[in-house]
């Protein structure tokens, strides 16, 4: 004779404290994710990814895998709701952010109409470095797309729409700006000629391979451990991962390296500016990640810096 105490869940708006939904006969082992699905039934627009549920309006958000009976609530649980706004899945996010620059750059490379002057439409540059730059840029974004689809595993399911629009505008506008100069009829090739281009290209390729290796390593880490098992990344047999001896986020290090070498290869100031801004943003992320690792793991290597070996 099983005696299951059913729970009652009332969902209140976090701001107005109005009751939005009352769920009765909720199983004690129901997860927050399941509650979100139940809530969704009453509010068609508010799919689960858009819901932010908390026990305290000013507290931490509840996770989808939290179980109702394990939470500090009585048999009538009061949960506060906040609308996170329209959400987009991560894969879509990356597709939007990376397909844009990919195609936009090609528009400039092929000198589509209305960009440069009329007589330059569909002409091509006499400089090999311009074609090389196009190949590098294109490969960079193809690699990113492949990683987004096949390699990355994401801890959160979605991202708010507003953020994506902002990110896309930034990536798309910047790639248009730098593509404009590299593919311009008045483009000036690098001062030190082929030597400069070739050295920069070599470093670019190494950094791209390095970045890819790190992404694979991070991904394997998540695969082995699963979301609950927390381990920090280590150098592996792959020489590119040996950067883990020196930095917490070698993927960012390699990314900066790739863009820096691209700047040198094209000798283009807008590219250098993009690299600089990317460096600042990635340093912020790397420092955050480094802090998280240091706090969480007592045996975290002292030698490691966030992004630049021995320096930053």
């Amino acid at each position: 004779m099983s005696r299951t105490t059913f729970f009652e869940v009332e969902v209140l708006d976090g701001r107005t404290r109005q009751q939005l939904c009352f769920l009765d006969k909720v199983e004690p082992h129901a997860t927050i994710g399941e509650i979100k699905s139940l809530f969704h039934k009453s509010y068609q627009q508010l799919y689960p990814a858009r819901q932010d549920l908390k026990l305290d309006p000013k507290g931490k958000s509840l996770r989808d895998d939290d179980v109702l009976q394990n939470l500090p609530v009585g048999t009538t649980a009061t949960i506060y709701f906040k609308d996170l706004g329209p959400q987009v899945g991560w894969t879509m996010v990356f597709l939007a952010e990376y397909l844009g620059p990919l195609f936009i750059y090609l528009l400039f490379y092929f000198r589509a109409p209305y960009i440069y002057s009329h007589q330059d439409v569909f002409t091509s540059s006499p400089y090999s470095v311009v074609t090389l730059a196009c190949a590098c840029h294109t490969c960079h974004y193809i690699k990113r797309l492949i990683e987004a689809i096949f390699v990355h595993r994401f801890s959160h399911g979605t991202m708010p729409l507003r953020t994506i629009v902002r990110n896309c505008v930034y990536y798309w506008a910047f790639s248009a700006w730098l593509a404009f100069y590299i593919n311009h009829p008045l483009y000036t090739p690098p001062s030190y000629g082929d030597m400069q281009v070739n050295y920069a290209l070599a470093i670019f390729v190494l950094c791209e391979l390095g970045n890819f290796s790190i992404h694979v390593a991070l991904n394997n880490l998540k695969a082995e451990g699963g979301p609950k098992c927390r381990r920090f990344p280590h150098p592996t047999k792959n020489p590119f991962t040996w950067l883990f001896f020196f930095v917490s986020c070698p993927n960012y290090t390699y990314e900066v390296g790739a863009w820096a070498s691209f700047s040198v290869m094209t000798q283009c100031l807008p590219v250098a500016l993009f690299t600089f801004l990317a460096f600042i943003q990635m340093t912020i992320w790397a420092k955050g990640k480094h802090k998280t690792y240091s706090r969480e793991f007592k045996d975290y290597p002292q030698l490691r810096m966030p992004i630049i070996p021995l320096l930053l």
Partner: protein
Amino acid sequence: MSAPAMGTTKTAHSDVAPKKKRGPGALATAYLVIYNVVMTAGWLVIAVGLVRAYLARGSYHGLYYSIEKPLKFFQTGALLEVSGIVPSSVVLTGFQVLSRVFLTWAVTHSVREVQNEDSVLLFVSAWTITEIIRYSFYTFSLLNHLPYLVKWARYTFFLVLYPMGVTGELLTVYAALPYVQKTGLYSVTLPNKYNFSFDYHTFLILTMVSYIPLFPQLYFHMMRQRKKVLCHVEEYKTE
């Protein structure tokens, strides 16, 4: 018969008015008081300079030259405010200071031909009155002796001074455009070694356009602040 859920305690502990927030320490307060007194004095000097020059010349024309140096000094000095110690939004203050400094140096100073324009006098007067009131407001606030008149002035004069200043600024930038285009001031053209170009003329036009979304936001922000600050006090006084 169920126990109340733990997440429903309704103590409004974080809804207390921001006045109770801990202010800066004694040393920082002293520094801030000195800073604000100096700035108030500086802008008073500019105000006096304008009046005296007007009385001496008998016309509004060309008054810029009589206060050029103190204007540059004290407006640029306001960059110290962007450090974040002063109790106002860093983003809004920073933005305002940067745009003022931009107008002072990159437009008025750089394009000599606009220095005689009446629009310059328009924004300089607006800035002068605004800053005198604003810095005295900060000074008195820091000393915890804020006369209602100063608070009222700070949150009321802007209603006229903001549009006045913006008009002066926009007219000045507009006046500078032909000279910038003719001389190619601060502009870089292709081809060059670093494959970069910058057209200051276009940049100035974009700056003017940016006033359209930005100015209303700042203006309405101040109006909301006005409602909050002045109406709140009145409620307090009538109780």
